[in-house]
């Protein structure tokens, strides 16, 4: 373990190119002047040649751990040297990266202190990456050797790793972006500007109470609460029908509930306009029957609410299904044995045990609604919300980054509030229901009084979803949606035509480029997102360490901020050394990982808080270490959460738009930005056809993932015949 990281550190320092190299993985740099060419040289070679001498202390820091190799782990010197060497090395690496950039020193005070610097440096590369990892894990091993987190090397390393990546890819860019809130138009730091903008009437106005318009902050808050409540209720209804009723077509119902998250943006909005808009089928039909003039009623709160509930119910459902399945039937059976009625059992046993799921589902719905950008844009009318205001403060005619930063702060404040409220509501109770003990019960059916309304709601909502998707499918095969309804396949041909030519198959359709890029990036991001999300969830539920609460909030942060802010923040932070990754596919993958990680974390936490700690303890008692316990005991029980995280991150990588707008480049164009381009250009048919094709691709992918991950078999009798 220790040897591994020391060797890795030296490989990074003395063998690999220190700075970024284009096409690193082709290894063509080996033939292009490595190791002496300054652009390709390892750090040790640079220092030996007398260049970039500020890298020299890293050599010393990496030499120190060699001294502890002979010493026992229990020796206090062992821990002390590792902590000092790892901590110093990592800190120095970060400091020199931030301090010295493309034009020498990056801050005036550094130049004043040391005089101007003739040299400059570019973005860090694989050498720096490997060395930084080595320092980080040497440091965490030192901490573990001193006895922190029970001396567990895996846990210490995981905590250190997650903190490091969250700090680099969440805190750093967001802090950079939010700093803009304090910058005046002249580019100076100013509290006055901040104070004036943060109390702006357009944010906090309460005009709607007296017939006027309310500020964007109140609109967003009201909308998010409504969406959170409705999506949680609907998600719960679907989960109950799937687990606690004799409903026959569970499989198709499951597929139906997942449909909206695999739908690219704008498409649902367009379908809703065609149904409920001024010239929409439903609006004109109802107006004809009632003999009144059709109105634009859907624009504003009603339209956004419909679209968001439609879009985010699946997320609530994915979180809740695992929790509802996980509630121990034994407890419910025990309640019934004690003569509780079905309704009493549900109200006093099942429902309280579902609290972590309900709270997490609400939180996700709330945050998603706050950060949603596509639906308010299409259906918002004059109902301003924070996310669109932020977008247009940045790209609109105002070019006001500080206003955007302030709006982002307000939004973040609400999210923070919801987050703490959720914790408060959950309190310190235990929700553990999956224990190592045999639990061969069957979930009782829902009480009658509940079953009827739940089934009605689920039926109505399913029918509505079907109508919307029928419209979308239809829209992809008509010539001009809403005007010329003759059937045609030309949109599919334009997007996805193939030709046999020289050299075999040629992808001639206009959509193929962005399609393959999207597939590649989505499949790279999904497993990484799930892995980081679940490790984080494991640390949060199973380990105790200082600063755990702020750690938890940090992991939720990137989710709470609208994608557009993340997009601009990423450009500002990662376009310049030390980390220079704009224009690459990597920045897209990273932005997806950190935007979608919270779903993995939430799903993982919700499932893990149901698993009895005695499971871990017995594994540890039997001699397994914490990594083995995580892999062999917890992971298999987490299959629903893994599936949720995988599916969600894959799908979001294919359907997300707001951050993507800023991060796509010529070589890495994504499907969604291509679709937006079509919509802007009135090519609704092509946009919808592409979206429809994506929906089928994602359906197939979700099915495949379900097969790969498999289901958790909690030892229970199958219920209602064939089960689910």
């Amino acid at each position, binding site marked *: 373990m220790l040897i591994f990281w020391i060797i890795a550190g030296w490989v990074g320092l003395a063998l690999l190119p220190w700075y970024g*190299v284009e096409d690193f993985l082709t290894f063509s740099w080996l033939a292009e002047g490595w190791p002496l060419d300054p652009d390709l040289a390892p750090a040790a070679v640079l220092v030996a040649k007398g260049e970039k001498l500020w890298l020299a202390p890293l050599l010393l820091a990496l030499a120190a751990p060699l001294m502890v190799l002979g010493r026992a782990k229990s020796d206090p010197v062992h821990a002390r040297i590792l902590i000092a060497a790892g901590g110093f090395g990592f800190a120095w690496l970060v400091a020199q990266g931030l301090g010295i950039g493309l034009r020498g020193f990056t801050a005036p005070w550094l130049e004043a202190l040391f005089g101007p610097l003739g040299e400059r440096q570019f*973005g*860090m590369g694989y050498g720096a990456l490997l060395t930084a990892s080595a320092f980080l894990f040497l440091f965490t091993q030192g901490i573990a050797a001193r006895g922190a987190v029970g001396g567990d090397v895996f846990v210490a390393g*995981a905590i250190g790793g997650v903190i490091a990546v969250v700090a*680099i890819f969440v805190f750093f860019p967001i802090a950079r972006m939010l700093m803009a809130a304090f910058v005046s138009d002249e580019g100076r730091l100013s509290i006055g500007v901040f104070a004036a903008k943060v109390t702006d009437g357009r944010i906090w106005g309460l005009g709607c109470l007296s017939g006027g318009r309310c500020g964007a902050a109140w609109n967003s808050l009201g909308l998010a609460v409504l969406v959170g409540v409705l999506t949680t209720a609907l998600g719960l209804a679907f989960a109950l029908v799937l687990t606690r009723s004799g409903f026959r077509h569970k499989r198709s119902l499951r597929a139906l509930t997942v449909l909206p998250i695999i739908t690219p943006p704008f498409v649902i909005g367009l379908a809703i306009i065609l149904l409920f808009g001024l010239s929409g089928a439903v609006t004109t039909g109802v107006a004809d029957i009632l003999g009144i003039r059709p109105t634009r009623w859907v624009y504003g709160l009603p339209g956004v609410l419909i679209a968001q509930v439609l879009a985010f119910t699946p997320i609530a459902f994915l979180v809740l299904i695992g929790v509802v399945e996980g509630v121990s039937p034994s407890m419910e059976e025990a309640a019934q044995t004690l003569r509780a009625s079905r309704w009493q059992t549900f109200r006093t046993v099942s429902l309280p045990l579902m609290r972590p799921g309900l709270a997490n589902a609400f939180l996700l719905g709330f945050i998603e609604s706050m950060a949603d950008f596509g639906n308010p844009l299409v259906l918002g009318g004059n109902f301003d919300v924070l996310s669109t205001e932020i977008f247009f403060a*940045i790209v609109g005619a105002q*070019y006001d980054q500080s206003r955007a930063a302030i709006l982002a702060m307000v939004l973040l404040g609400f999210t923070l509030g919801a987050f703490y409220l959720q914790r408060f509501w959950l309190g310190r109770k235990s929700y553990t229901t999956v224990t190592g003990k045999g639990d061969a019960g069957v979930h009782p059916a829902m009480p009658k009084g509940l079953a009827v309304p739940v089934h009605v709601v689920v039926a109505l909502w399913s029918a509505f979803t079907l109508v919307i998707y029928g419209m979308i499918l239809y829209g992809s095969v008509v010539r001009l949606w809403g005007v*010329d309804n003759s059937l045609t396949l030309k949109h599919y041909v334009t997007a996805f035509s193939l030709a046999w030519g020289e050299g075999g198959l040629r992808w001639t359709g206009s959509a193929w480029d962005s399609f393959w890029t999207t597939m590649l990036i989505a499949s790279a991001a999904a497993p990484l997102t799930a892995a980081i999300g679940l490790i984080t969830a494991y640390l949060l539920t199973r380990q105790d360490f200082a600063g755990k609460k702020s750690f938890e909030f940090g992991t939720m942060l990137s989710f709470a901020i609208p994608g557009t802010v993340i997009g601009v923040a990423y450009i500002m932070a990662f376009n310049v050394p030390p980390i220079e990754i704009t*224009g690459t596919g990597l920045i897209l993958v990273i932005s997806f990982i950190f935007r979608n990680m919270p779903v993995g974390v939430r799903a993982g936490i919700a499932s893990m808080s149901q698993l009895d700690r005695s499971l871990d303890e017995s594994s540890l008692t039997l001699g397994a270490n914490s990594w083995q316990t995580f892999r062999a005991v917890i992971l298999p029980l987490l299959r629903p959460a893994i599936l949720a995280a995988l599916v969600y991150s894959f799908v979001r990588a294919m359907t997300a738009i707001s951050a993507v707008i800023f991060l796509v480049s010529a070589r890495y164009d994504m499907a969604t930005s291509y679709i937006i381009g079509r919509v802007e250009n009135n090519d609704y048919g092509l946009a919808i056809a592409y979206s429809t094709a994506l929906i089928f691709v994602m359906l197939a992918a979700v099915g495949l993932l379900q097969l790969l991950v498999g289901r958790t078999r909690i030892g229970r009798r199958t219920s209602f015949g064939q089960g689910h």
Partner: protein
Amino acid sequence: MTGRLATPVMQTAVLALGTALAGSAAEAAGRLNFYCSAQEEWCQIMARGFEEATGIDVDMTRKSSGETFAQVKAEASNPKGDIWWGGTGDPHLQAAEEDLTEPYISPMRAELHPWAIAQAESAGDRTIGIYSGALGFGYNADLIKADNLPEPKCWEDLTRPEFKGHVQIANPNSSGTAYTTLATMVQLFGEDGGFDYMKRLHANINQYTKSGSAPIKAAGQGETAVGIVFMHDAVAQTVAGFPIVTVAPCEGTGYEIGSMSIIKGARNLDEAKAFYDWALSAEAQNLALEVNAFQVMSNVAAKKSDFAPDLSAIKLIDYDFKKYGSSDERKRLLAKWDNDVSTLPQ
């Protein structure tokens, strides 16, 4: 054993995403990073056309002009783009004002309309006009008939009481198109008269959209009767098959100048200049006709579409781009609109 091996592997995986990789300063010769703010097809055909004409590889990224401006500004300390072509002139002027673009005097200037060169001179040669389009409005003929509304011909018609709830325009805070409308009214009717007009118009507006061309798309779909937009956007709706009639308002109207700028610190400056010169040629500007772009091009010899609004038949005001494109004047007018117009009851 597996546990011991797996730990470092896992930790590497966690951190492999962590620190930086990829992207270096090196770049191949004969390449151009092209930021395009026109519609997708036009951008594509410009990129491919330039590749064919010169053999220089083009990497094209298409974003709206506001998004491109935000990106150029964010990238200022380490520019990734070389040339920025297309999109309304204000963000280009703003970029010039903020020293984000590079001055350049092209040998092609002799072939251009005077308004294109005026645009360049007002920005210290940091940008230049490539096309222009007049402001106007379009209406959905079917809806106008169904609602028994008179066909609107003038700006004043849109403030008549029977149009209440039938007119859509973008929010000038978020859209360059709507800001051009506001500035046009101020120049057409004087500051007091212009704001008075905006107030009367406000009473009839059913929605202030975020994006500039959204009103005419809504009109095409039958979601509003009238949309105030650039006339070429309205014409594009008609050509796409929607029942839209384009109107050049009788009182006269303002216009935009679509612009092009070289990004300051461009890594491929020579290629950017080659593109700049090529994009001003009649041959390059004729490509617009192939992609249904109905703007008037800046090269005098460029061909005109039959559908394109005839600028010579439209009463154009003498739009002061320097004054109304400056950030001070813009902020002042927008603040005044926010306080005096948008807060009024509708």
